């Protein structure tokens, strides 16, 4: 029992801490939002350190095989918790200015992070679903947190309805898989889901397709991306930054784990699906972003495109491919958070602006902000020697090794198309004349975050080894290490009446 609890420690710290902060907020006589924000940040950092220290190479199981802790989960959880902490820091100024500073916001963000941790560590269909619902429910509320704004409530409602639909698809798939394999545990599913005479059991394949559709929705891969632009545009900007970073990390982690550990023998079946959604996401992400005028909408399409690029590595199905996906999604998180730190600084005397044309001539007014945003845009476009280039290099390398040449050609072509709209932002900032109203100076915490993240993107090529090694170690834990025999006997030995 104690072993189970120690494995769950990061999530327990976050969950109990969130309830404590909630009590502080509810019973404090004065406005405790500031205190709760600091509390939330320190809780997330503690949880990140705790999950980092749990990352033994060999997988460990808890709660009868429902919860798994290995190097992969440790790495992804650390990233997710840190990303959440960074977003809380970034959100502070904006929420204060827009009159949205409420103590429930950081609490809900912690609870969403707990859900993400549960997703990343899920080794069972029920645990997976519980994690996804905990995360999504908190995100729906955060999207609609600006409740007197029509667009924010519309974003929240759209997110909720489409999220419920995708959960329905996921559950339908899960029920089919459970019905035909007799187990909700990933190891148990993998055991029964094997090809007989080269033919996979049809019902389980159908179940897998539904399950993957539900998961693709959560990472907003085409054709399940429709909600993304509207939700990203309508939600308050810090919440958009949160949606674009942390849930994407967790969603991609859960996608990897489900595909690799529950369907290892069905590679041929899921490879086609991954290739299709990957190509569709890359192409749509590149072409649909061209016409955008709102920078948050543009980031939404950019995020869709990047999910496509990340999935190229998974389509390879090899250990190198999975390592490339982990590296790509890490770099994506860094670049996106940096870009949103700059977008959150687009404030003028008249209030926040979010049109791309408002960036005109930024290099003359705010040279540091323009420089950071330019580095991040070059990196998102994948121009060497910035970090984004290496991310793309590794995923395409893995796909070439696996012989997926057409996928790579399509990927590189859509990357070239995508470079247009990233470079257009740089052009507007550096070559267009400034407009009448100047941008306010960047708030200190935002300039520090944007500077550090842009610096990482710029200098990644100098010393890339630690991150690449970590991604390789995480992918090894996921693919090469067999999970220990599931403790199907339960916590207190076999249940006596079975």
């Amino acid at each position, binding site marked *: 029992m104690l072993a*189970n609890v120690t494995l*769950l420690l990061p999530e327990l710290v976050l*969950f109990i801490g969130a*309830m404590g902060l*909630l009590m502080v907020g509810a019973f404090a006589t004065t406005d405790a939002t500031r205190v709760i924000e600091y509390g939330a940040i320190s809780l997330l950092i503690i949880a990140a350190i705790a999950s980092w220290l749990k990352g033994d190479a060999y997988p460990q199981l*808890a*709660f*009868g095989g*429902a*919860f798994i802790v290995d190097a992969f989960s440790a790495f992804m959880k650390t990233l997710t918790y840190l990303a959440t902490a960074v977003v809380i820091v970034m959100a502070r100024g904006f929420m204060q200015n827009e009159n949205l500073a*409420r103590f*429930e916001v950081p*609490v*809900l963000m912690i*609870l969403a992070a*707990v*859900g993400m941790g*549960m997703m990343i560590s899920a080794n069972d269909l*029920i*645990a997976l679903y*519980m*994690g996804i*619902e*905990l995360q999504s*429910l*908190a995100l*729906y*509320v955060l999207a*609609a*947190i600006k*409740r007197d704004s029509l667009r924010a409530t519309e974003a*929240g409602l759209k997110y909720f309805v489409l999220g419920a639909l995708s959960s329905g698809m996921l559950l339908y798939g899960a029920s089919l898989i459970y019905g035909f394999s007799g187990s909700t545990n990933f190891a148990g599913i993998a055991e029964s889901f094997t090809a007989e005479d080269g033919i996979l059991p049809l019902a389980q394949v159908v179940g897998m397709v539904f399950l993957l559709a539900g998961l693709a929705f959560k990472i907003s891969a085409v054709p399940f991306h429709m909600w993304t632009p509207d939700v990203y545009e309508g939600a308050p900007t810090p919440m958009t930054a949160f949606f674009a970073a942390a849930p994407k990390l967790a969603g991609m982690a859960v996608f990897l784990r489900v595909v690799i550990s529950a369907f290892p023998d069905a590679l041929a079946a899921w490879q086609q699906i991954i290739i299709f959604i990957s190509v569709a996401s890359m192409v749509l992400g590149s072409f649909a972003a061209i016409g955008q005028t709102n920078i948050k909408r543009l980031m939404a399409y950019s995020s869709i495109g990047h999910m496509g690029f990340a999935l190229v590595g998974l389509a390879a199905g090899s250990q190198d491919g999975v390592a490339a996906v982990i590296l790509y999604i890490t770099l994506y998180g860094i670049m996106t958070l940096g870009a949103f730190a700059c977008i959150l600084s687009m404030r003028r005397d008249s209030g926040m602006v979010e049109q791309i044309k408002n960036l005109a001539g930024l290099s003359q007014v705010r040279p540091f902000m323009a420089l950071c945003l330019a580095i991040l845009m070059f990196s998102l476009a994948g121009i060497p020697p910035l970090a984004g280039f290496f991310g793309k290099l590794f995923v395409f390398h893995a796909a070439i090794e696996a012989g997926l040449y057409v996928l790579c050609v399509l990927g590189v072509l859509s990357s070239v198309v995508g470079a247009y709209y990233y470079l257009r932002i740089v052009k507007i900032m550096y070559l267009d004349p400034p407009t009448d109203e100047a941008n306010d100076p960047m708030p200190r915490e935002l300039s520090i975050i944007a500077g550090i993240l842009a610096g990482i993107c710029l200098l990644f090529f100098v010393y890339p080894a630690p991150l690449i090694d970590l991604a390789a170690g995480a992918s090894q834990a996921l693919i090469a290490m067999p999970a220990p025999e599931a403790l199907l006997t*339960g*916590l*207190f030995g076999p*249940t006596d*009446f079975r």
Partner: protein
Amino acid sequence: MTLTTLAFYLFATVSVASAFMVISARNPVYSVLFLILTFFNSAGLFVLMGAEFLAMILVVVYVGAVAVLFLFVVMMLDIDFAELNEGFLQYMPIGATIGLILLLELLLIFGASTQLVSQSALPQATPEGMTNAEAIGRVLYTDYIYYFQAAGAVLLVAMIGAIVLTLVKSENPRRQSIAAQNARRREDGVELVDIEPGQGL
């Protein structure tokens, strides 16, 4: 005819009759009340089948929460139900078709299940020497404690979300202050005034 059979027919008849009344009652409040009666009788049927945990859940969740919520909605919203019922005949054919399909499916399942029963022994719903509430409790708080707590976390988020999105903080809420009430003396609230006869105040 044993007592169990008698109870089954009683519960079944009342259940079907009140279900019919749910859709045919003119007053929507009566419909909801008949719905509650249906739930109670279905709970009785569950008890007869040995699924007393389901029976309790049915009463607690459906009668206690869902039906009461319906009742609130019906009473608070000013919906003209006569108007809603106007197109009833128009939708009759499609409704009847769906009903017929459902009936056929039920008959199919019935036919299949009688064959299945004859082929294999049904698994025991309740383990030996244990009520099924106890059986569920034994695994819910041990093997399934993780899922159970996770479900609790989801409900907590739902509760916080509902409050965050709907609670409007008023500028000067009139809260009860017991200290102020107790500190109030007779002299603060009562004033004796001598009024001359024939004069107003």
